[in-house]
């Protein structure tokens, strides 16, 4: 199986390998597994070779940063200077970014190497990666199944050894869901933990960049480098970032772990339930106290979520006007036609559906009934989490998804059934808390199962600590 980055780093220092050799081997894996369609853009080979040699010489002169040799796939919604960034959309087909996202700056300052831009659902709207203008991403474990979305390409890059780690983004589960479908680790950090400067906006009161790795240690390392206050994102939090990697091996002895009963109801695949319960038993044997808890407003999550995010999306996506940096229709003769035809030609079906729904819930006469109502429901959902954590609970454990990865086409005809795939993830985005999805065994068809560790605001350290314990036990 794939090596932990600390081992790769040791090999680099001991001259057992080089960054150049690592890049070559990842590029070969990308080429060999082209049919998985994990990347929209793989960076130029010569540029990558040059960058690898630069980092190699820094390692030789012992002046390299702590991510020297870490090869990263980046979701195509996050901009890298002078590279194409499409967000999975035709409307940004030729967009070349004139600047770097903050997370890219931070990675490169520590000598990580970005290998390319990962495929995704258009504007991060989707749970299966069937909404990319650049084609479906396939699940490497069973190519007849979806990898999950919207960060499907990022997750597959990690799962199929095409990069060491990856960056995705979450609005309602877009890192955790694919991570659970493909058997890797993915974090939804606390809202405000990681700067979003350079991430294309979908729903701004939800969006967060999320790190993905083959193991908890790599994911923790990636998080500690990119997290923290950034003056260019006024929603980034002024909360110190602890060294997460130092704390992952603390174990679970004495922790109080809550099991929210609403996450174990109707619709949960029995095989997943038994895997999660067996992990709970093992944590209990290791000294954790397992406590039954309740988040009573859980059932309103999907309705609240799809009102609020579509409203925010309809506003955020108004910037794609065919004038400033997007596709312009050749049919348009007037300014009004430029807007309408450029957008109608180049947005995909799901994006249009969400813009329509969002415009409707914000329109005169419906604003109070839908949008305002959902914002109030958001208060109640958030309060559930505040209440449960105020009762000496250290973290919550729940399945990441009610099912394993489903087949292509299974849910595309009925948008609502697709939306319901996010039933266990969206509430955490509504509330803002951090949550880490970790592999928790496989079902009888050999498909991975994911378990999520949900913690208090800004307590990602707890997610990693409990996640690491699960990784060792399962």
């Amino acid at each position: 199986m794939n090596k932990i980055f600390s081992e790769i780093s040791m090999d680099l220092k001991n001259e057992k390998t080089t960054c150049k050799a690592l890049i070559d081997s990842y590029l070969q894996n990308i080429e060999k597994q082209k049919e998985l369609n994990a990347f929209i853009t793989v960076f130029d080979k010569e540029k990558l070779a040059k960058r690898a040699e630069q980092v190699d010489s820094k390692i030789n002169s012992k002046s390299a940063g702590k991510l020297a040799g870490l090869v990263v796939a980046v979701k195509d919604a996050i901009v890298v200077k002078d590279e194409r960034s499409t967000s999975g959309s035709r409307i940004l087909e030729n967009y070349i970014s004139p600047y770097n996202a903050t997370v890219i700056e931070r990675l490169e300052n520590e000598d990580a190497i970005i290998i390319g831009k990962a495929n995704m659902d258009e504007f991060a709207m989707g749970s299966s990666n069937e909404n990319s203008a650049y084609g479906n991403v396939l699940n490497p474990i069973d190519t007849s199944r979806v990898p999950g979305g919207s960060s499907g390409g990022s997750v597959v890059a990690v799962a199929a050894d095409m990069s060491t780690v990856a960056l995705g983004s979450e609005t309602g589960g877009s890192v955790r869901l694919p991570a659970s479908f493909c058997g890797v680790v993915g974090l939804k950090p606390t809202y405000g933990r990681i700067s979003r400067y350079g991430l294309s906006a979908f729903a701004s009161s939800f969006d967060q960049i999320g790190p993905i790795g083959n193991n908890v240690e790599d994911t923790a390392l990636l998080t500690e480098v990119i997290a923290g206050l950034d003056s260019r994102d006024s929603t980034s939090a002024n909360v110190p970032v602890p060294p997460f990697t130092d704390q992952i091996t603390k174990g679970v002895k004495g922790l109080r772990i809550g099991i929210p009963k609403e996450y174990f109801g109707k619709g949960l695949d029995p095989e997943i339930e038994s895997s999660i319960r067996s992990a709970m038993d093992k944590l209990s044997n290791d000294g954790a106290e397992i406590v039954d808890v309740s988040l009573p407003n859980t059932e309103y999550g999907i309705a609240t979520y799809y009102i609020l995010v579509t409203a925010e999306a309809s506003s955020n996506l108004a910037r794609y006007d065919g004038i400033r940096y997007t596709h312009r229709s050749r049919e348009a003769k007037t300014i009004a036609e430029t807007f309408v035809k450029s957008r109608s030609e180049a947005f995909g079906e799901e994006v249009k559906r969400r813009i329509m729904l969002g415009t409707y819930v914000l329109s005169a006469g419906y604003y109070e009934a839908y949008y305002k109502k959902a914002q109030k429901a958001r208060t109640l959902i958030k309060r559930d989490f505040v209440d449960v954590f105020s009762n000496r609970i250290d973290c919550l454990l729940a399945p990441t998804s009610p099912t394993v990865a489903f087949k292509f086409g299974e849910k595309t005809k009925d948008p609502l059934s697709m939306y319901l795939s996010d039933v266990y993830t969206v509430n955490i985005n509504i509330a803002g808390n951090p949550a880490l999805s970790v592999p928790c065994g496989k079902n009888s068809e050999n498909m991975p199962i994911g378990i999520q560790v949900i913690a208090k605001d800004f307590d990602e350290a707890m997610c990693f600590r409990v996640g690491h314990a699960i990784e060792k036990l399962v």
Partner: protein
Amino acid sequence: MSVTIDEVKKIATLANLEFNENELEKYTHQLNTILEYVDQLNKIDTSSVEATYHPIQYPDVFRNDDIKESLPIDKVLQNAPEKTWQYFVVPKVVGP
């Protein structure tokens, strides 16, 4: 609540989108399915609940109004579908 095809046409105009008749019918049907589902929020009493706009509350962020370096104009315009000199080009707009 349910939406009619005429309302869907009106929403499309507000959203700067256009659809053919088949698409209009499909979207009307799908929006109604979704709206029917979200109507379950009416089961909750929110009469005494405040709205939440952001999941985490932060103090307002202020900064000094200093001039900082911005991107050069040619970089800003590099992705424009049509441009001339230092400007975006748009179809002629003559107001009434």
